[in-house]
């Protein structure tokens, strides 16, 4: 067996842990894969399951003939929606955004009707995964095809309905108006005034559908043979899954144990209650046998939830000098065929971010959610906030171009000055800290902004075939989802608190149980650093436990850049309670007055003496508890929880230089600089990794990714051959720096870093490409900015080309039937 040596840490081994570049202690097992991914697990008597899916976007199930499949080799059973109709539960929408929201019942396995291509209609259970897959092809479904609606704008016409019984494709209209809320003026007045005596920028921008591409496909294993039913799930949200399984299947919560073992990425794609997850649970219960299901990548792309998918109508009003006076936003957001767990809540999260870092005196946000016969949409890294940032940063560039001034100048004219914090935004949120001036100045310097502008000018003058553009994104976001009171006001069905337990073991080691649920973020390392500092124990002596509802009984899991901001604070509070309890024991053992015992760097001391003892000695003494008086407890473990009062607000300035080959339309990144204020940085190496990954994911929306369907509603970009993701070969090395202003919303001062890069980078890239060719008459290029779209835009079509003329996946491009060799 190969083993990897622990790489040496970059910083010194002594002293404060917070701020140290610790290598991640979880990486060896995660990177080698020799760990507990759900699909690596197996339990005695386990059966395997394969799904039968709809090939149609909208159809009635006339009949399902399972007889041939049932007779296939080693097939144990074949289950249809009718078989488990009473036991399978439903997939809940936890966030009905309005009281009137239309929410069709979402069954894990369809019973009578399918609403998108890929929906599960039957499951085959066999001795091996291969036999289950083979037999799934023998299930014969008779369909009656129904008209399908596949496009947001078509859906709004209500001519073809995704759910005929609802009578409309419109699910909910959510609105915010600053005049009504008392947070600002009347936006229509501002726009009317600007039309006569100012500037009005109106844009329709498209947020294409994206598909979360976590590395580990979804996998579920349900074992009903114990006293509790255990479900191993590659999920971001084991606690929420347990609650909703209980709430929707009738199985008592106490009889359900959910384990998220090591989980290979999520990006929001596993912030979900999944049909396949519920089906695995229901089938295992029905058969009384352990059952495992692991999806293929093709299944993942066609049936896991998608992200983004909005049409954005933006109207910005400004005075003649570029001072902004109003912003009106109307979104048409594609829900897909059901309202997912967060559903319409995802675009609504953007409601508070379209105004960005700017001082709009008037603001209105309208979000119309719409059904289509496509897979449902939900959170995808950034969830609502990348969409908002994209729109505002694009139109701020348009405003600058209209006035003929530098895009940074128009931003500085309108942003919140560093002296104005805390600042109440026009959307009603209080931004605690920030300094846009410092971040921008630092980014400009690192970027060599003025030199690149000079080169751009020179290339334009020369008529170079390769033009250069500079893109700006000065973003902010709301992180640390989310204060329970705010969630309650927004009609979300759960809270946003977090919980942790710190346990002092007899041998002086420490166990930290967290309620957040990592899936690649490095929680085990970062939380060890926090606890090591607080308790004054070595980093190596801290073990972080998570992801199993039997171990971590309370928690609300990981999403929305919340783990550190909310979960980290809960850990600190638990650690502080441990110290308080240990102080009582120490006072007893040192025969000192409690008030005279102080704690510093892992050691209790008695004031005015040289008497003292370490916290690990207290732990051992507590284990023995010899001679403890009645009023000293024999336990110093403690729990902590935290519910923030408000969000945290990371911000930053991202600058991007793109080269555009005007002959082919191909774009190439030249330089990317980001200076982010993410508050206190616990582990700079992890933070940098989050920023690099996030920036790449945002670039990928700008340049590469798009879920494309054909006219029948079948996913064309159904494999990584046709759904393009960048690799290291397609990116450059980004220059990352921080300009921290600690948050005041938590005692760590952390602001969150998981989503910043994704939120910021998309508009920076698109702005750079548009900037490169704006002098040639181009004002917009649809995402992803394929070479052909850029080339078409250069030839005078501002919207760019449609994605496909006659799209078909690469592998289906011809006759693969003849016996031939392969390369």
């Amino acid at each position: 067996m190969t083993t990897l040596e622990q790489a040496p840490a970059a910083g010194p081994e002594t002293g404060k842990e917070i701020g140290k570049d610790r290598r991640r202690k979880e990486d060896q097992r995660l990177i080698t894969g020799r760990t507990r991914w759900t699909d690596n697990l197996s339990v005695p008597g386990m059966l395997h399951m394969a799904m039968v899916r709809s090939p149609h976007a909208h159809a009635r199930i006339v009949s399902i003939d399972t007889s041939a499949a049932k007779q296939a080799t080693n097939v144990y059973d074949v289950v249809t929606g009718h078989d488990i109709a009473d036991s399978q539960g439903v997939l809940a929408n936890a966030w009905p955004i309005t009281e009137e929201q239309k929410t069709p019942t979402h069954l894990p396995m369809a019973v009578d009707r399918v609403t998108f291509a890929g929906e599960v209609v039957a499951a085959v259970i066999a001795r091996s995964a291969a036999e289950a897959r083979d037999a799934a092809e023998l299930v014969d479904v008779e369909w009656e095809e129904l008209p399908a609606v596949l496009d947001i704008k078509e859906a709004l016409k209500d001519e073809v309905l995704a759910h005929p019984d609802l009578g409309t494709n419109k699910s909910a209209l959510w609105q915010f108006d600053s005049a009504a809320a008392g947070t600002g003026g009347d936006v229509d007045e501002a726009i009317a005034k600007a039309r006569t005596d100012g500037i009005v920028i109106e844009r329709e921008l498209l947020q294409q559908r994206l598909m979360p591409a976590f590395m580990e496909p979804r996998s579920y294993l349900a074992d009903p043979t114990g006293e509790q039913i255990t479900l191993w799930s590659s999920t971001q949200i084991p606690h929420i899954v347990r609650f909703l399984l209980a709430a929707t299947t009738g199985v008592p919560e106490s009889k359900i144990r959910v384990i998220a073992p090591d989980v290979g990425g999520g990006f929001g794609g596993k912030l979900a209650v999944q049909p396949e997850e519920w089906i695995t649970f229901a089938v295992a219960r029905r058969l009384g046998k352990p059952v495992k299901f692991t999806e293929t990548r093709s299944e993942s792309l066609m049936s896991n939830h998608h992200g983004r998918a909005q049409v954005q109508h933006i109207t910005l009003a400004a005075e003649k000098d570029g001072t902004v006076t109003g912003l009106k936003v109307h979104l048409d957001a594609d829900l897909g065929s059901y309202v997912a767990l967060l559903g319409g809540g995802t675009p609504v999260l953007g409601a508070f971010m379209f105004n960005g870092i700017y001082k709009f005196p008037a603001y209105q946000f309208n979000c119309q959610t719409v059904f289509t016969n496509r897979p449902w949409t939900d959170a995808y890294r950034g969830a609502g906030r990348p969409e908002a940032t994209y729109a505002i940063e694009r139109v701020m560039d348009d405003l600058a171009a209209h006035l003929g001034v530098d895009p940074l100048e128009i931003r500085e004219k309108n942003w919140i000055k560093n002296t104005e914090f805390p600042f109440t935004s026009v959307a009603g949120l209080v931004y605690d800290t920030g300094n846009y001036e410092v971040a921008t100045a630092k980014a400009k310097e690192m970027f060599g902004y003025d030199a690149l502008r000079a080169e751009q000018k020179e290339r334009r003058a020369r008529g170079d075939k390769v033009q250069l553009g500079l893109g700006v994104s000065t973003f902010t976001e709301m992180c640390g989802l989310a204060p329970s009171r705010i969630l309650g006001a927004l009609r979300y069905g759960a809270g946003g608190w977090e919980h942790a337990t710190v346990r002092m073991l007899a041998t002086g080691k420490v166990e930290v149980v967290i309620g957040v649920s990592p899936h690649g973020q490095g929680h085990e390392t970062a939380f060890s650093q926090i606890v090591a500092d607080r308790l004054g124990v070595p980093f190596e002596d801290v073990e972080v436990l998570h992801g199993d509802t039997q171990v971590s009984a309370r928690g609300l899991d990981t999403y929305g850049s919340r783990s550190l901001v909310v979960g980290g604070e809960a850990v600190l509070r638990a650690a502080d309670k441990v110290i308080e309890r240990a102080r009582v024991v120490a006072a007893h053992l040192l025969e000192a007055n409690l008030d005279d015992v102080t704690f510093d760097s892992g050691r209790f001391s008695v004031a005015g003496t040289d008497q003292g003892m370490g916290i690990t000695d207290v732990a051992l003494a507590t284990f023995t508890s010899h001679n403890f008086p009645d009023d000293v407890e024999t336990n110093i473990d403690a729990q902590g929880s935290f519910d923030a009062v408000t969000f945290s607000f990371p911000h930053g300035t991202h600058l991007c230089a793109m080269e555009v080959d005007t002959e082919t339309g191909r774009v190439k990144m030249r330089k990317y600089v980001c200076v982010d204020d993410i508050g206190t940085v616990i582990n700079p190496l992890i933070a940098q990794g989050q920023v690099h990954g996030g920036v790449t994911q945002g670039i990928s929306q700008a340049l590469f990714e798009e879920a494309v369907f054909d006219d029948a509603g079948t996913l064309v970009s159904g494999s990584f051959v046709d759904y393009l993701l960048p690799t290291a070969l397609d990116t450059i090395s980004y220059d990352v720096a921080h300009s921290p202003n600690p948050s005041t919303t938590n005692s760590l001062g952390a602001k969150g870093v998981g989503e910043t890069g994704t939120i910021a980078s998309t508009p920076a890239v698109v702005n750079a490409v548009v900037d490169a060719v704006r002098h040639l008459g181009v004002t917009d290029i649809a995402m992803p900015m394929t070479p052909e779209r850029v080339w078409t835009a250069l030839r005078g079509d501002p919207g760019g080309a449609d994605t496909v003329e006659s799209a078909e996946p690469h592998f289906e491009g011809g006759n693969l039937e003849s016996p031939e060799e392969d390369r």
Partner: protein
Amino acid sequence: MIPAQFDYLAPTSLEEALAALAESDDAKVIAGGQSLLPVLRMRLNAPELVIDIGKIDALRGVRDDGDALVIGALTTHHELLNDPLVAEHALLLTKAAHELADPQIRHLGTFGGALVHADPAGDLGAPVLALGAEFVIAGSGGTRTVGADDFFVDLFETAVGEDEILTEVRVPKRSGWGAHYEKFVRVAHQWPIVAVAATVRLDGGSIAEARIGLTNMGSIPLRARGVEQALVGASPSEDGVAAAAERAAEGTSPPSDLNGSSEYRQHLAKVLTRRAVAAAARH
């Protein structure tokens, strides 16, 4: 991603392989498996029998055969890329192999397998066409040789018959010719949207002879003969070859797909041909 069940045979001689192929009604030949396995795993094809010719060592390697190089069908892309004879006498293949997929695929995928798979977006079809290679095909009745112009028949279809196996490819030596493979992709690991394989012989500062192959500009690799003719006597700079390159899309009917329309591909062919020829002349 589990293929349907199939029988598997791994003969050690060509005769054995051909006999098995003749016997079965529904067999596929596998070499490096870099195209067939995805097809099987996605269940786009489900043959009863897969015949693995990877153990037939006689089909491996590059040898010098006078005025031609003989490249065994099982030679991997990695071996092709690093072969000094190929670099000396058929530089265009070295250049194309360098752009083909990634190191993992290049270590497993084979020269013959890629050609017989005949993906119109494959990176080796246009170079062998441009080089005027000949294909040696074995069947139960013996071997036959097919010229490059007759080898590619249609999308995923070649002159290799149902019961035949490509054994080697004879590539006429073009020693001292410059070569370049200009591949246009959105991300590094994808098939080319369009690629141009160009190899040129210079004489006295101008182009004496040029051979140009086009990838993914139709259902099979294509020769840009109009460009080749127009290049004779041209100055080998981008400006010098520009007029000739304008003829690159003549007679092509490229596909439209997620990465580009037919019209866009025709435009790209012209630009990329200009760049490829100029680059070939520099090497």
